[in-house]
C-alpha cells in the first residue's frame, strides 16, 4: 500500500488549504480501490462513444470524397 491518502489529506490541510496547491487530488479520496476491485466500465463506455463518432466521421468523409462532388470544389 502506498502512503495513505487519508493521512495526506490531514497534513495537507494543516499548512496549505486544499485547492491551493497543484496535485492535491489525493486529498479527496474516500476509498482505496485495489486492482481487483476496479472495473473500468466507464472507460469502455467512453471508448465506444469515440468509436461511434469515428464511424460517423468516416461516413461523412466518404460523403465528401465520393458523393459530395457537387458540393465541394472540383475542377
Amino acid at each position, binding site marked *: 500500500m502506498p502512503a495513505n491518502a487519508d493521512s495526506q489529506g490531514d497534513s495537507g490541510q494543516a499548512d496549505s488549504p486544499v485547492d491551493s496547491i497543484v496535485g492535491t*487530488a489525493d486529498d479527496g479520496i474516500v476509498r482505496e480501490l485495489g486492482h481487483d476491485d476496479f472495473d473500468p466500465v466507464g472507460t469502455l463506455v467512453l471508448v465506444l462513444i469515440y468509436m461511434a463518432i469515428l464511424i460517423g466521421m468516416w461516413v461523412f468523409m466518404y460523403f465528401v470524397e465520393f458523393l459530395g462532388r457537387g458540393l465541394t470544389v472540383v475542377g
Partner: protein
Amino acid sequence: MATASGGSEFVDKFPDEAAIIKASFLIAFVSLGIGAFFGLIQALHRTNVLRVIDSADYYTLLTGHGVLLAIVFTIFFLCGVFHWAVARSLDRPAESALFSWAWVGLMTTGTVLATVAILGGLVPNLGMSADVLFTFYAPLQAHPIFYIGLAMFIVGTWLSGADWFLSYRAWRQDHPDERIPLQTFMVLTTMIMWYISTLGVAVSVVFFLIPWSLGLIESVNPLLTRTLFWYFGHPIVYFWLMPAYLLWYTVLPKLAGGRLFSDPLARVVFLLFLLLSTPVGIHHQYLDPGIAEGFKFIAMTNTMFLLLPSLLTAFTVVASVEHGARQRGGEGYLRWLGALPWRDPAFTGMALAGAMFAAGGFSGMINAGMNINYLIHNTLWVPGHFHLTVGTAVALTMMAGSYWLVPQVTGTKLYSRPIGLLQVIMWFVGMVFMSNAMHRAGLAGIPRRTAEPQYQNFEFLTPIGSIFELRVQIALGGTLLFLSVVLFLFNILLTSLGEESDRPVDSYLPEPLSGPEGSPRILDNLAMWTGIAAVLVVLAYTLPLAGIIQNGGGLFGGGLPVPATVSAGFDLVMTTVTSAFNTLWGVVA
C-alpha cells in the same frame, strides 16, 4: 518511489538537476512566447483580418513559428522533463553536472544561431535568410548558419540522451537485478528511437545541405533530402508525443487521485513506438513522384499498425483516470467524470489535451490513407490536424504539466491556480475554433503555407457554413491561443519569482495498480529491441533510397552521378529483390 513528506522536494534533493531543468524550461518558454506571437500574426494575416507584415515576409515568420514551436519549445521542454524523470525515478543525480550543462549550452547555441538566421530574413541587406520552413529540405536553401545551428542542436540532444544512459548505467551497477524504473524506461526507449531517426536528418544536413549552402557542391538530389527529412520527420512526431505520454502515464493518474492501471502495458506501448515509428516516414510523401506506389503502400500499412499503441494508450490512461474518479467517490457509467478534480489546472489541461488528441486521431487516419490523403494534401487541413496533436496534445500537456513541475524545480507555489485553469480552458476553446475551421477550410481546398490563400477568378466553396465564417473562426481562435500563452508565461514568471514554500506541490507519485513484476523481463532488454528496430528500418528504407538515388540523378542530383559500378550494383539488388517479391506475391495471392 520517493514520497513528498516535507524537506524532500526535488529541488532540495537534486539542486543541480533542478537548475538544468529550469534552464531548459526557460528556453522552451521563451521560444513558446515568440512562436505564439508569430502564430498570431499568421492567423490574422492569412485571414485578412489584420496585416502588419509584408506578405513577402510571411515565410520568414512561418519558419520561425515552426522551428521555435515544433522543434525548440517541444524538445527543450522534453529535455527538462526527461532530466527530471531520470533523476526522480532512479533516485540519483546525473553523473556530471558539467556534462549536463554542456548539452544545454550546445542546444542553446544552436537555437540562437538558427533563430538569428531565420530572423535575418526580416532585415533586408543583411544577406541572411532561412525561409525554408521547419521542414528545411531542398530545393529551398537557407543561410549556412541555419543548418549549422540545427546540427549543433541535434548533437546537443544526442549528448542529453548520453547523459541519461550514463545515469542508467551507473544505477544498473548498484541494482543489477531490478527492473528499470518505468519513467527511465520511457526516457531510454524514446532516446533510442531518436538516435535511430536523427541519423537520417544528420546525414541530410551534414553531407548535403551544409556543403550545398556553402557552395561546396553545386546541387543536391531534392527527393533524397526530402526522404531523409521524412525518415526523421515522422519519428519526431513521437519524440514530441513521448514526453506528453510520460506525463499522462505517470503523472496524470496521480493528478486524478488514482494510480496507473498497468506498468507492463505502458512498457509495451513505448516499445511499439520504438519499433514502428521510423519505418513509416514515406507516408508523408504519397504525392512525391519518384517513389514507387508499392513503397508508399507498405508505409501506409506500417502506419496503420501504429494505431495499436495509440489505442492502448487511450485505454490505459483513461482507465487510470477513471480509477482516480472512483476513488474520489465517482459512480455510474459516466457520472464518475464529475468526480474528477476539474479545478486543478494541471489535471484539466492534460485531460483536455487528451480529448483533443482523440479528435486529432481522426484527422490523422485521413492523412494516413493513401487515396483519401489526396483530398487534403497541402491544404489547411494539415495544420488543422497537427495543431490538435503537437499543438494541443503535446503543447497543452506541457503547459499543464508545468503547473505541477515548475514548482518542484523552483520550490515556489504556483502563483495562481484560477489563472492556470482559465489559461488551459482558453487554449482548448481557441483550438476548437482554429482547428475545426482549418480542417474545414482544407476540405474546401484552401492551401496551407501561403500569405494570400485566394486566387483570381476562383471561389472556394464549403458544404456547410461560409468561407467568411471560417476566416473569422481562425482569427478568433488564433487570438485566444495567443492570449492563453500570455497568461501561461505570466503565471509561470510570477511563480518563479515567488517565495519558497515548504510544500510547493504535492509531488508524491503512487505505484501502478499492476506493477512490472508480472511482466516478462524481455521487455527490459533494450539492446535486443534496438536491434529489431534497426532491422525494420533497413527493410523499410533500403529499396526506396536506392531507387531515389538511382533514378533521381545520383546522390547530388544533377551534379555528380553515381559511379557506373555502384549503379549496376543497385540494379542487380533491385531486380533480384523485386522478382523475389513478385514470386512471393504470386505464391501468396
